């Protein structure tokens, strides 16, 4: 008789666990970190040494190192810093996908050169974005970054000015 009641309890606990499974939601913290491949020391100080009309491409490379991207004709080089300020990953069982919410700091420094390899101008962009990513088995659905860190919005080669 006692054995039978124990078995009933086990079955009841099992049924309760199954009933609660769809509601199994576990928030997991996402730590602060720099995104792979981007540099950590890029900010206003990084461009302070640059003087338009004087600083050369050689000076820029020697001071800032290998850029994250460059034009095919090297008419611009781009340095990027992407830092996640942390967030939360929501683990949902038995969902095949989990949403992740993150706050991300983007910094992009683009340095444009003239045909002689001297700096024409610089463009520093800094933005903080709230991103939602869907992490799924078939492949993650990543948000479009609020600053194009791949530089697809920049010309591949120097834009020729229309001649008179």
């Amino acid at each position, binding site marked *: 008789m006692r054995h039978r009641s124990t078995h009933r309890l086990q079955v009841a606990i099992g049924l309760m666990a199954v009933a609660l499974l769809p509601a199994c939601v576990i928030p997991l913290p996402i730590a602060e970190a720099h995104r792979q491949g981007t540099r950590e020391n890029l900010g206003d100080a990084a461009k302070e040494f640059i003087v338009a009309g004087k600083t050369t491409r050689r000076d820029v*490379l020697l001071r800032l190192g290998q850029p994250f991207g460059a034009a095919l004709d090297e008419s611009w080089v781009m340095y990027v810093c992407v830092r996640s300020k942390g967030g939360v990953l929501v683990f949902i069982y038995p969902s095949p996908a989990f949403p992740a919410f993150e706050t991300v700091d983007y910094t992009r420094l683009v340095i444009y050169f003239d045909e002689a390899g001297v700096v024409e101008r610089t463009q520093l962009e800094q933005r903080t974005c709230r991103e939602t990513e869907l992490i799924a088995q078939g492949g993650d659905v990543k948000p479009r970054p609020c600053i194009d860190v791949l530089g697809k919005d920049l010309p591949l080669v120097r834009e020729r000015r229309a001649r008179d």
Partner: protein
Amino acid sequence: MPMKLRLVGQMLVTCVAAACAEVPPLGHVDWLDFLQPGTTTRAVVADRLGTPDATFEGGRILTYWVAADAGGYFKPRQHDLRTHSLVLVFRHDDVLDRHSLVKVRGE
């Protein structure tokens, strides 16, 4: 039984010792000492550092990713080990003119 326990104990000690053993550093403090402006040629650089990670200005400027650990500098095999960017500028006669080692990770 005591024999088995002793064996398990020895295995545990071995595992803990292996886990706690310090990994020897990959870097060498003098790895980049061969770079001497006015002396080092492009051929020597290619021989010691291999293919550059990027080139600029028609190959006059070469860049290499460098990693650093307690032992010194070394060539990183993984992207996340990159800590420095080595920039080499050559003269027209393929002799090193200037170089710099830029820290790209770490404030």
